[in-house]
């Protein structure tokens, strides 16, 4: 293990504290907002720059400590970037579907209602 130079330590501290702070802010948003569609914006802070800050801090630390480029943390970043749209889109569509089938007033109605395409959740096939 090599000693880490001062500039590396300072850059590491900025990256990791910034990333963790953004993730924490996202969790605060998730806990405090009063509507589901507002809450869904919270975790995207953690999955964008919160994640990037911590991943880059880890890559920087291991690169400096081991004296060779360590890049495998980038895989986590790529994985999160690819999967987050899928989970959030499925989740928000499920919430939209549930709100619509309950007739919630503050949710936009679908453009054209085709009854055959969207079975109600309680119909057993």
């Amino acid at each position: 293990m090599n000693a880490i130079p001062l500039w590396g330590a300072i850059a590491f501290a900025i990256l990791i504290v910034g990333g963790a702070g953004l993730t924490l802010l996202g969790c605060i948003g998730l806990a405090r907002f009063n509507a589901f569609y507002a809450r869904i914006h919270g975790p995207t802070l953690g999955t964008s720059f919160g994640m990037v800050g911590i991943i880059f801090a880890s890559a920087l630390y291991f690169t400096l400590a081991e004296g060779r480029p360590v890049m495998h943390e980038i895989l986590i970043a790529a994985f999160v970037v690819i999967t987050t749209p899928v989970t959030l889109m499925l989740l928000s569509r499920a919430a939209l579907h549930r709100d619509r089938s309950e007739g919630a007033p503050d949710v936009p109605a679908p453009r054209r209602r085709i009854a055959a395409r969207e079975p109600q959740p309680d119909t057993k096939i």
Partner: protein
Amino acid sequence: MTRILPHPILTIALTLFWLILQQSASVGNLILGLAIGLSAGLATRSLGLDKPKMGKPWKAVELVFVVLADIVRSNAAVAWVILTHGNSPRVAGFLRVPLKLRDHTALAFLSIILTATPGTVWLEFDEEAGELLLHVLDLVDEEQWIDLITKRYERRLLEIFA
């Protein structure tokens, strides 16, 4: 080319992923990674996905930088909303955006862009009407958001996937 390599980008990306995961670029790992990438490409061919038509792929570099700048900006904006209006955002609301994009790969990229920038969440896309339903955390000016999506992202995606 198309028989052995139906999805060259997928094959190259998976091989690269394997090499990064193993943290070595030795011949053995290269062969193993190529085997994984090639078999995954062949397996994906049997799914029968439609291939995206590339127009000007080099424009993607410009798009990456535009999106990175927007991610920084919207991170700050959402953090500010959480800090100042913690209980209920003032003007959060739904937004309908008419889109000209129809290519499924381009729409997938647009969904990644919109989800990666905090403050916008993709709800659903109506393919017949070509209309996208979004939820925006800070919906001060609807026209500005529609302009942002159509002029900044959609125009470039239309150029990339001609």
